């Protein structure tokens, strides 16, 4: 137990896995820079990457927390889209009535998206913790259910036209730094603190490692699961706010291709598919690696499928390196 605790507490500190990821990041950075010496890592290029990373990043966090608990959350994209649509409908109604200031409409929209995603998160948590449906099936169910609601609310159309204040969240710059990346950094820091310095964080990792032992240790597993899927849902809500602001519109199928990519980011970042391990710093590094690869290859005008090939290769490489390094560890 002692070593487990040590491991958990190190999520803000360097460790073997993180060092390997960091090494890969540096190599990718140099490779991309070498291939696009005049265009890569210019201010505008860094800014564009900082606009792109957060929506996928927050969704990856949502996937990560579910995976650490030993489950998964297949409903992240549909949660984000439904929360976005709810916020969009509220903004649309408020703008039509014309009595509210744009700042207040924006605040309502944010609250609405967070509230909707929290309710969905609790629903997932309830199904998994109390009805004891396996997470994959429970969230598959809610994924289809939520997507159905989104399509019927919008009839498949786009809801668009938000106030300037709201658009700032996804498109604005603060001292040259894109607003989405600031929100992402804040969320990352909060999750890291939650994992490292609260009883919830400790119990979450315990639950993911061995639910039976955790229960015998006097932990209320159900409560932990409820909190975990609530957190996962709210992260989707945050992603939704950024996404609909960036597109100035909400729709039932935005980001539909992100679901497996969030799993890729989580696994690449060192989250175990069996639960119980994974760190915020690892995910952040893996997201940066994926973003550098995709933007760098776009600059090289590589085929989009080639980017997928490279992502896959990097994942496989990291798995192999991790295996070898743990082999060396075991022997030495």
């Amino acid at each position, binding site marked *: 137990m002692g070593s487990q605790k040590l491991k958990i507490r190190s999520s803000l500190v360097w460790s073997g896995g993180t*060092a390997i990821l960091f090494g890969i990041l540096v190599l990718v950075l140099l490779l991309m820079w070498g291939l696009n*010496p005049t265009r890569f890592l210019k201010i*505008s290029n860094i800014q564009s990457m900082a606009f792109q990373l957060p929506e996928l990043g927050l969704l990856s966090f949502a996937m990560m927390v579910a995976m650490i608990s030993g489950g998964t959350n297949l409903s992240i994209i549909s949660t984000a889209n439904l929360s976005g649509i709810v916020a969009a409908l509220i903004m649309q109604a408020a703008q039509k009535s014309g009595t509210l200031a744009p700042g207040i409409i924006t605040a309502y929209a944010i609250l609405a998206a967070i509230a909707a995603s929290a309710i969905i998160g609790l629903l997932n948590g309830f199904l998994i913790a109390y009805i004891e449906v396996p997470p994959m099936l429970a969230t598959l169910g809610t994924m289809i259910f939520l997507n159905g609601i989104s399509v019927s609310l919008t009839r498949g159309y786009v809801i668009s036209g938000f106030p300037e204040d709201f658009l700032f969240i996804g498109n604005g710059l603060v001292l040259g730094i894109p607003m989405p990346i600031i929100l992402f950094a804040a969320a990352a820091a909060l999750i890291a603190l939650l994992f490292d310095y609260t009883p919830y964080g400790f119990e979450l990792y315990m639950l993911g490692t061995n639910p039976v032992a955790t229960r015998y240790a006097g932990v209320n597993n159900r409560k932990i699961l409820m909190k975990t899927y609530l957190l996962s849902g709210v992260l989707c809500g945050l992603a939704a706010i950024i996404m609909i602001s960036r597109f100035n519109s909400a729709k039932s199928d935005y980001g539909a291709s*992100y679901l497996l990519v969030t799993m890729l980011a989580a696994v690449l970042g060192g989250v175990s598919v069996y639960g119980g391990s994974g760190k915020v710093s690892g995910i952040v590094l893996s997201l940066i690696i994926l973003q550098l690869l995709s933007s760098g290859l776009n600059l090289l005008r590589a085929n989009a499928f080639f980017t997928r090939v490279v992502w896959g290769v990097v994942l496989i490489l990291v798995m192999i390196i991790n295996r070898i390094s743990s082999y060396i560890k075991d022997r030495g």
Partner: protein
Amino acid sequence: MGKKMLLVTRTLLIVACAIFMALPLVSVAAQGKKYEIVTVVKITGIPWFNRMEEGVKKAAKDFGVNAYQVGPSDADPAQQVRIIEDLISKGVDAICVTPNDAKSLEPVFERARKQGIVIITHESPDQKGKDYDIELIDNIKFAQHSWDTLVKYMGPSGQYAVFVGSLTVPLHNLWVDEGLKYAKTKYPGLQLVTERIPCGEDQELAKQKTMELIKAYPNLKGIIGFGSLGPTGAAQALKEKGLTKQIAVVGNVMPGQAAAYLKDGSLKQGILWDPANAAYAMTWVAKQLLDKNKLSDGMTIPSVGKVSLSGDIITADVALDITASNAESLGF
């Protein structure tokens, strides 16, 4: 063990720094002053956009510009936005887009135009944030031509049915509205047996709907299909039922896919436009704008012909008739 990791990281960092310092020596900024005009498609790797790419390549050669095509691996609006963001940061001269979703591109188009990047769209006449939109068919004429073609094969009177991709595809439904209006005055003998049927993007469904139509309306003489898989599905059903002589099918098809049906007569004629021409025309218009040439009503676009200009929408009327004799030679 910790030391070993540290050593690995340190070595990696040293290697990295060495490459970093050596790179500027290798990179020679030898770039010609060719315009960089990029075509962004809905999705890479499907026949329609492969054909479009041929137009891009031809334009690059003919106009002496650096023109190429990119697109996402899924038809996801979110991915299209990311690609355009990367192009903006790359600093290209013009971006020609076939939007997945017109609304989601508004913020990113605005950012592009702030940097002086020319934006041309295709199949998105109501797009905000564009310089010009190009339509290769005049929607009203296209609809009328479709009905004329049907009459050519089934005669000016009798029962017929209409397929659309779905009830929410604006273009398909516009064609049907216009076509029905036209038929009312020009071909009063035509009798639409039922409401438009949404099955045009699904070959299996189109086949099944055709079977049902044949049962319900034994006197059916014709079918018009919008959506590129409707007519082939209908043709398949007719072939199975041995009714290819009694019922005439016309509509949107991909030539390569339809060739076999056109040859055995289960499909009478395809009506479409050539995506290669669309890309060629977009690149041409982008170059004119970059050269500061004025566009005018009645101007001629190479290989497309005379076009009309109204507001910021350029319209050509180059609907393409696909028959048994040219289906294979069209090359898409």
